[in-house]
């Protein structure tokens, strides 16, 4: 590890709020990645007739355990349970429901309030809210991360080319982006949703078509400013090529602006997906999603646990990401010494103003 990386890490750690947010978020995310082991309608491990079975990884027909059907075993069925427990044992995950498991044993009509069985109650189709949350969190974050990564790569590349070469390239690109941003995204999505069945990757592609533009302006302004600086001239005098100059000299300057923007793009991506789900144009029906939970909360005001849960999960997730983003920005700022903990440095503010001015031109 070079001293530079070490100092960046130290700066990241110095932002206590961001540092803790990072760990909390990481734990939540890793846990949700293993959602199948936490909330599932299949046992983790079965010991049956001196043999081990792993229902999470393999599909076993009911006949394996002495049942009658050739179909997959329904482990929640009381009859099957008795069969297995008679000749062995089962280890269940802490939440014995998957995101699509319907609890038919509800004492009250769905949506059921929180109870020992369903910790945050059930939704209006009798599905466990905690299970749906865990799966929904995972899909939201993954969607957001993938979309942010792709749109950042495209946006930075487009902005870099525009800003660095300037002139006609810049002019044509800018006009194209202005027209492109004028397209009504939501209508297009609604129209497309009626043509194709939106899946995770379809939605990602559709949103990517429009989300890459958000970084272009920032990066372009930074490149426009930097391409006339002496150190870029110095690099040219050293014989560096255009790509080298862009990547080595100008991009690192654009990185703080980019990284400051990234958590917002990530949050924006997550919110967009949630909004689409809320409106019913998002992921296919039955998918676990926070937007769908919010919609249920709105439809069932008599069951406040639905709306409140969705709200708190979204609010906490988005706040954690913003805090992490702030800490990342601090880490990459070479003017930040560990002792100084002011949130905005005057130099940074001036640079931001200059960038804004140029963007406005």
């Amino acid at each position, binding site marked *: 590890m070079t001293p530079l990386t070490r100092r960046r890490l130290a700066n990241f750690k110095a932002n206590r709020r961001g540092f803790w947010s990072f760990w909390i978020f990481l734990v939540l995310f890793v846990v949700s990645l293993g959602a199948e082991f936490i909330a599932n309608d299949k046992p983790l491990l079965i010991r049956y007739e001196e043999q081990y079975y792993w229902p999470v990884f393999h599909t076993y027909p009911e006949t394996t355990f002495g049942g009658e059907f050739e179909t997959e075993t329904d482990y929640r069925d009381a009859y099957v349970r008795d069969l297995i427990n008679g000749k062995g044992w089962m280890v269940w995950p802490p939440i014995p429901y998957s995101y699509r498991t319907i609890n038919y044993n509800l004492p009250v009509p769905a949506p059921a309030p929180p109870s020992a069985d369903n910790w945050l109650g059930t939704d209006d189709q009798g599905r466990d809210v905690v299970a749906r949350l865990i799966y929904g969190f995972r899909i939201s974050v993954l969607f957001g991360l993938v979309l942010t990564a792709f749109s950042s790569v495209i946006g930075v590349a487009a902005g870099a080319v525009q800003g660095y070469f300037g002139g006609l390239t810049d002019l044509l690109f800018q006009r194209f982006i202005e027209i492109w941003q004028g397209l009504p995204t939501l209508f297009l999505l609604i129209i497309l949703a009626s043509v194709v069945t939106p899946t995770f990757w379809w939605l990602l592609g559709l949103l990517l078509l429009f989300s890459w533009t958000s970084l272009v302006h920032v990066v372009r302004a930074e490149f426009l400013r930097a391409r006339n600086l002496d150190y870029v*001239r*110095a*690099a040219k005098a050293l014989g560096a090529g255009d790509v080298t100059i862009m990547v080595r*000299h100008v991009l690192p*300057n654009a990185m703080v602006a980019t990284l400051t923007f990234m958590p917002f793009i990530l949050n924006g991506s997550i919110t967009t997906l949630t909004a689409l789900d809320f409106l019913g144009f998002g992921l296919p029906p039955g998918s676990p999603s926070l937007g769908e939970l919010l919609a249920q909360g709105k439809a069932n005001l008599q069951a406040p646990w639905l709306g409140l849960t969705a709200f708190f999960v979204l609010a906490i997730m988005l706040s954690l990401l913003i805090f992490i983003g702030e800490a990342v920005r601090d880490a990459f700022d070479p003017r930040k010494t560990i002792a100084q903990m002011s949130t905005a440095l005057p130099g940074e503010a001036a640079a931001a103003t200059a960038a804004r001015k140029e963007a406005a031109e």
Partner: protein
Amino acid sequence: MSLMPPNPDLLSVRGLRVDFRSGAGATQAVKGVSFDIQKGETLALVGESGSGKSVTALSILQLLPYPMAHHPAGSIRFRDTELLGAEEKTLRQVRGNRIAMIFQEPMTSLNPLHSIERQINETLFLHKRLSSSAARARTLELLRLVGLLDPEKRLTAYPHELSGGQRQRVMIAMALANEPDLLIADEPTTALDVTIQAQILALLKDLQSRFGMALLLITHDLGVVRKMADRVCVMNQGEIVEQAKVDDLFIRPRHAYTKKLLSAEPRGNPLSPPEDATEVMAADRLKVHFPIKKGLLRRTVGHIKAVDGVDVAVRRGHTVGVVGESGSGKTTLGLALLRLHASQGAIRFDGTDIQGWQPKRLRGLRREMQIVFQDPYGSLSPRLSVGQIIGEGLGIHGIGDSKEREAMVARALEEVGLPPEARNRYPHEFSGGQRQRIAIARALVLKPKFVVLDEPTSALDMSVQAQIVDLLRDIQARHNLAYLFISHDLRVVRALSSHVMVMKDGKVVEQGPTQRIFEEPREEYTRALLAAALNLEAVESPAVRT
């Protein structure tokens, strides 16, 4: 107030301290400074950047960024009024009225959206409550006073339509509008060309004697001090280390720092390499023209001739100094020689014409010709470590493996007088002089034959300038380098160059051996430039702009 004894001095500053709060700690910018200014006197505050001279000046008018800055102790009395911690109302009556101030950069201290008339009228309206016709008459009178040509035409002009010297004249007119008792001039000529600097200084001196006003002159330039001041306060690290009459100070400096400052002028003589050394870089009739486009179809209607048919030749081990005022095309000439700027005319490097070479073909040659820029703050990538900055050229030209490169970087750092450990740090951790050393190391590590030095010393403090000049001369002797040394500072040029070219408006006015140019200049413009730069004398000559 009435209980205070009457103040015999116009302004007396006693035990002034200024602290800046920053994060956890506080920085002491000024640590107990005391001085007096009498009526009609000129006091100079001299010091290098960071010595606290500007902060001292700003605290007189209480213009510091409070509450970030604060005064733990001290007193500033103007006549019988205590200014330190005075009410905003009291201060407003003093500011721009009894005490006026002019700043270093006249472009940023004038409002770009207001005409000259409006800027000057503002002070008149605020303090004198004149009617608009009376104010107009007074503004005209002031503009005439500060020697602005055609003042009637200039009334409606905007700051960007004026030259730097004209803008500074407008600033002075604004400051004089209410006939202040004290004028604070914060580096009033630093941003100006030498000939203009001489004119502005002469103007200030003339106005001062005419109005009998006191002048507090803040500067880093000892030449200006000698020319202008009655008394001098030398500041270093927030303290006044020496206070003396100007003649005494220059003849008998007492404090060690003053002695250091006085001996800091670039000294020494250029090397004397053999006259018949091989030509490294030469250009014949080099031209750089920028088209002026006008009209709907953007047709080219004319050209700005930044460099207009210049012949230049630099021999191995020689330094050619290029002097001239801003806008004379000297930097463009340097960039064009390195093919960093499009140009016409032959450019011969090592005997081969490289004009018209493709960038790819040129890339191999880049390691042999290097450049050091003026601003050491702008020429180093702020987000690369020093080691990465210096090692970059090695990587591009595929010199050595990573171990060898690191050793070469360390050697280059040692050669410019920096510890090799510096390579793991970022540029912003270094001072201006150290940064310039890093920039020199970056050029040097490639072992070039020819280096363009574009005002490498003008952004630096005086004592650092001398060190950099010594360093450049050492390096030249060691590696037998050819330099093209671009500068407006004739003293530095004299200490380093064997030949001098004087440029004006893209053309070479005069060229020849340094000694000949300095001792018997043939052209009128060269004479005016020398008088202004070395003796700060304003020369009335058609060759000099106003």
